C-alpha cells in the first residue's frame, strides 16, 4: 500500500465515521462532504478522472448542499435535543460490525483480490463520450428521462399545497 492511499483512506473513513457519529446534523453533513471528496480522490488515484470529477460535482456540490438545506429547513430544537436510543445504537453497531467481518473474511480469503496493479488503462473523456453516444446511448436517454421525472417529482412533492387550497 502506498502512502497516498493510506492518507486518502484515513481521510475518507474519518470523514464518513464523523458523518455518522456526530451529534449536530449540520456538522454531520460537512464531515460527509469531506468523506465524499476523499472518495473522489480515490477515483482519481485509480485512473478514473471523469468519475472523480463527477463525484465532486454531484456529491460534494449538490447532494451535500441539498442535505444542508433540508436540515436547515427542518431545524427543530425538539428533535436535536433527543439523544439516539442506546439499545438501538448498540444493536446497529453489532450488525454493522458483523457485516464488515463477513465481507472482510470473503475479501481476504479470495484469491482474485490479491493481484497487483496492472498498467494504467486509458479512459479519456473522449472515449467515455464516444461510448455514451454509441454503445450506451439508450441507457443515457433513459437516464435523462429519469432525472427529468425526479426533478419534477421532487418539486411537486416538496411544494406547499396549503396555499392552493385557499
Amino acid at each position: 500500500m502506498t502512502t497516498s492511499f493510506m492518507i486518502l483512506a484515513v481521510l475518507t473513513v474519518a470523514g464518513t465515521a464523523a458523518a455518522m457519529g456526530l451529534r449536530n446534523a449540520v456538522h454531520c453533513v460537512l464531515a460527509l462532504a469531506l468523506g465524499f471528496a476523499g472518495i473522489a480522490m480515490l477515483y482519481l488515484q485509480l485512473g478514473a478522472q471523469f468519475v472523480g470529477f463527477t463525484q465532486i460535482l454531484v456529491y460534494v456540490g449538490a447532494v451535500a448542499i441539498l442535505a444542508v438545506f433540508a436540515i436547515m429547513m427542518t431545524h427543530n430544537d425538539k428533535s436535536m435535543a433527543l439523544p439516539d436510543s442506546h439499545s438501538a445504537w448498540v444493536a446497529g453497531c453489532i450488525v454493522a460490525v458483523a457485516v464488515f467481518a463477513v465481507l472482510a473474511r470473503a475479501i481476504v480469503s479470495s484469491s482474485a483480490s490479491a493481484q497487483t496493479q496492472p498498467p494504467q488503462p486509458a479512459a479519456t473523456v473522449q472515449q467515455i463520450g464516444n461510448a455514451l453516444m454509441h454503445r450506451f446511448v439508450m441507457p443515457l436517454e433513459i437516464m435523462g428521462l429519469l432525472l427529468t421525472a425526479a426533478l419534477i417529482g421532487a418539486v411537486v412533492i416538496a411544494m406547499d399545497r396549503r396555499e392552493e387550497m385557499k
Partner: protein
Amino acid sequence: MNSLQSYLLLSSLLFSIGLAGALTRRNAILVLIGIELMLNAANLNFIAFWRYGPAPEVLTGIMFTIFSISIAAAEAAVGLSIILAAYRHSRTTDLDQMNSLKG
C-alpha cells in the same frame, strides 16, 4: 503497489459505516445520507474492479458508476423532498415519531 484487496477492504468498511448510520440514527436525513454512503461504497468497488479487471478499455465499470451516481442523485432529491413533505405534516424528522401514514 496497492492491491485490489486494499480497495475492497476500504469499500466494505465504508459500506459498514453507512449501514451503522442508517440503522442507528433517528434523523431521517441522516439515514438517507447513510444509504448514500453505502451506494458510494458500491461505486468504489465498481471502479476498483474496472481498474484491476481483464478488459479496462471497454469502460464498463466507468459507465456503470456514472449511471449509478445519476440514479443516486435522483434518489437523494426525491428522498429529501419526501422528508420535507413529511416534516411539514408532522413537524418532526425523527423516525421514531413518524409512525402514522394518515394524512
